[in-house]
């Protein structure tokens, strides 16, 4: 482990090494780069964790601060993921609650919000109880929050047990995997969830327009002969949801709409306008939609910002020698699809300007069987919990994003979306006296994404084999050890 970190880890004198789930009795981190998005401050500093509490946060100045930079060891509040699929119950061969929480901890996340599209769907509190039982049994201190379904079985017709789910702690209602099918149901759930004070989390996709769709509609899909997945399908669904929200607000002033995994300039513009108009709308974007583009489907493996020409238009991977991998890798198949470089740039811009409130991974592990298929028949989804930080740090390294904004988007941003339903840690600062809930990573240390390196059962990521910046050294959730780099 980096020299800055002392105590609380194996082999270090003066403290016993806690195991995952145990309270961290003593941990001192000296000479690190601290990021506190609540205080709006980052810089050289030191922290002390004692008996699970963040005992001291010391900011260093002058000579003491010399040589401490944000490209070394960084301490930040634990990350929050608004959107993960843990596959339990029903698809435990793809992921379990235990493996998903381990993946979260490895990615620096201390709170994750699981989507309701399990089998059976989380449309009544009994499913919550089962998932929570699995979380407790896992011994992981990572906090698992739960979204409930909007409709029974996510079938789009009858409302799920919304009130009971809210009583059981649902942090949002979502039929994620698809949009709420009918605008009437969307209106009704916004009214009812508004009464309950729970946001509706909408997967924005016009399913008619995306029937049979395989890859982002555009140059790459045209060349590869893949059925186009139109940008308009997302824009329309976002505009529909915003229009419906505006009409329910007089009756349900508590109604809130959160749009998840937005991937297009048009959708983000719609959110930007809605926010400017004062509507209670929030949204998140994924690491893969800001860092990767549709040319990955063709076999390119460069970052989105490298795929954009000086003229602001996407470069041509066939013309400039960027195709280095096999085309049609099903690891690149995801919903919404990887977009063009212009849209990816718009996603990054929305993250910078605050239109996007949060980065969420849409962690979607799949079995090899479900991915080892023809591109058009393979399951949609990317396993993302463990690579999110790396993709964001790559953007930071390329000066596309500041470290501070990246950390905000993983902490205070999602925490604000959750509001007071956001679990026991709250605001996500480095607050003295509070339970230690933080991640320590070495921004200067790279690691290679391999199936073995991933704690998730889903190795379905196009980043497999790639070196990413930002090795997570330690994740502490609610004062307990969630992850420790075994090699540190």
């Amino acid at each position: 482990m980096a020299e800055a970190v002392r105590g609380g880890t194996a082999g270090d004198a003066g403290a016993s090494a806690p195991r995952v789930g145990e309270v961290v009795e003593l941990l001192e981190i000296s000479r690190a780069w601290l990021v506190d998005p609540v205080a709006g401050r980052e810089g050289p500093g030191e922290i002390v964790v004692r008996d699970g509490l963040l005992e001291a946060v010391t900011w260093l100045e002058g000579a003491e601060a010399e040589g401490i930079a944000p490209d070394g060891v960084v301490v930040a509040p634990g990350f929050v993921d608004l959107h993960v699929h843990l596959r339990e119950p029903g698809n435990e061969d793809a992921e379990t609650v235990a493996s998903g929480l381990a993946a979260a901890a490895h990615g620096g996340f201390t709170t994750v919000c699981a989507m309701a599209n399990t089998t059976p769907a989380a449309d009544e509190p009994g499913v919550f109880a089962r998932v929570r039982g699995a979380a407790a049994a896992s011994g992981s201190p990572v906090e698992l929050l739960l979204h409930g379904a909007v409709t029974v079985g996510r079938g789009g017709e009858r409302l799920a047990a919304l009130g009971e789910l809210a009583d059981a702690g649902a942090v949002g209602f979502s039929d994620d995997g698809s949009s709420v099918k009918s605008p009437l149901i969307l209106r009704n759930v916004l009214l009812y969830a508004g009464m309950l004070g729970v946001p509706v989390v909408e997967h924005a996709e016009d399913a008619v327009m995306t029937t049979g769709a395989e890859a982002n509609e555009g140059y790459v899909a045209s060349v590869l002969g893949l059925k186009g997945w139109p940008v308009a399908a997302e824009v329309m669904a976002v505009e529909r949801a915003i229009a419906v929200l505006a009409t329910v607000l007089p009756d349900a002033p508590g109604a809130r709409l959160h749009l998840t995994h937005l991937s297009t300039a048009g959708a983000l513009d719609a959110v930007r306008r809605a926010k400017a108009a004062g509507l209670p709308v929030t949204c998140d974007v994924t690491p893969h939609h800001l860092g990767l583009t549709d040319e990955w489907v063709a076999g390119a493996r460069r970052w989105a910002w490298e795929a954009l020409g000086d003229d602001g238009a996407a470069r041509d991977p066939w013309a400039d020698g960027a195709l280095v991998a096999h085309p049609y890798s099903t690891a690149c198949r995801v919903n919404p699809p990887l977009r063009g470089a212009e849209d990816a740039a718009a996603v990054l811009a929305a993250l910078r300007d605050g239109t996007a409130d949060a980065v969420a991974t849409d962690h979607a592990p799949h079995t090899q069987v479900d991915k080892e298929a023809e591109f058009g028949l393979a399951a949609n989804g990317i396993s993302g919990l463990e690579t999110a930080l790396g993709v964001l740090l790559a953007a930071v390294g390329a000066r596309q994003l500041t470290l501070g904004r990246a950390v905000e988007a993983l902490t205070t941003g999602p925490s604000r979306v959750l509001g007071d339903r956001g679990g026991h840690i709250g605001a996500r600062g480095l607050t003295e006296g509070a339970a230690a809930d933080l991640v320590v990573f070495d921004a200067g240390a790279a690691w290679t994404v391999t199936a073995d390196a991933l704690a998730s059962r889903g190795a379905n990521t196009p980043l497999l084999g790639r070196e990413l910046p930002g090795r997570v050294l330690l994740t502490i959730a609610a004062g307990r050890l969630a992850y420790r780099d075994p090699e540190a």
Partner: protein
Amino acid sequence: MSEPTTEHFWHHRHVLDVDVLSAADIGLVMKTTDAMKEILARPITKVPALRGRNVTIIFYEASTRTRVSFEVAAKNLSADVVNIAASASSVSKGESLVDTIRTIEALGAHMIVMRHGTSGAPYLAAEVFSGSVLNGGDGWHAHPTQALLDLYTMRAHLGDLRGKKVVILGDVLHSRVARSNVWTLTAMGADLWICGPTPILRGFDTWAAHWANGRGPVGHDGFTVTSDMDAALKDADVVMALRLQRERMDAGILPSLREYAARFGLTRERLTAARPDALVMHPGPMNEGVEIAADVAVLDRSVITEQVSNGVAVRMALLYLLAGVHGDDAEGSIGG
């Protein structure tokens, strides 16, 4: 095109798409096809080149002409041919493509010729198969042997295609033939025009725009997409009509076959805008009276049946070239 001046060796283990073929590779295919044509002109058209090799032909889509063409090609080279008529239903029965390919390999196949309804499927096959995969058409994506036989046929009549105006007419959106022809024809320096009603050109205008302004593959000389039939056909050297599927009407993409035939059908009258000796081509099967008038299909300058016979020679050439690539000669990559 520039013919290879020095001897050029084939180094592709698979033929999955034509986009990775260099001008020299294409030249070698043409030269080898010449040799196969000679064989086909003999009284006995069988040579022992692939004796002892097992070529398994697996078609997930119904096709007679292409499947038979491959079969004849392989048998002319004395390969042992196994034919599998797979159906999409085997997918729903839970047998994955990967399982099928492994089974075919275990049964002794050295080469697989595959037709599949899903774009990119041959790449998956190539990933798990230790021999060579020859793409017999995948989804909307690629139909390498068709593009190469089209090219061979054009060159037989026109020689060097540099600057020659080649028009592809019709439903390119859903056409693997069109996509593969874009690559081969632009690589040969043809002045490529694509023409049809806008809804079934979708994406190709973006493609052409991408390749404008000095972008795109080296050597390409014009790639124009238009709905203006007159502009497209004017002084054309080659006009290739594509089949219009009835399902385009069912899907609400186009109004009617009648309207299509009236506006975009290749008729004698329209053809007068092209050069007097312009070649008429069609990859088949034709809808006579829809995309091509019956009397156009049988004109002297129609080379549609010649395409079919050249198809056997081109497929023989590719099977022969692939059979010569193994071990250290082969580029390991799927793209290779």
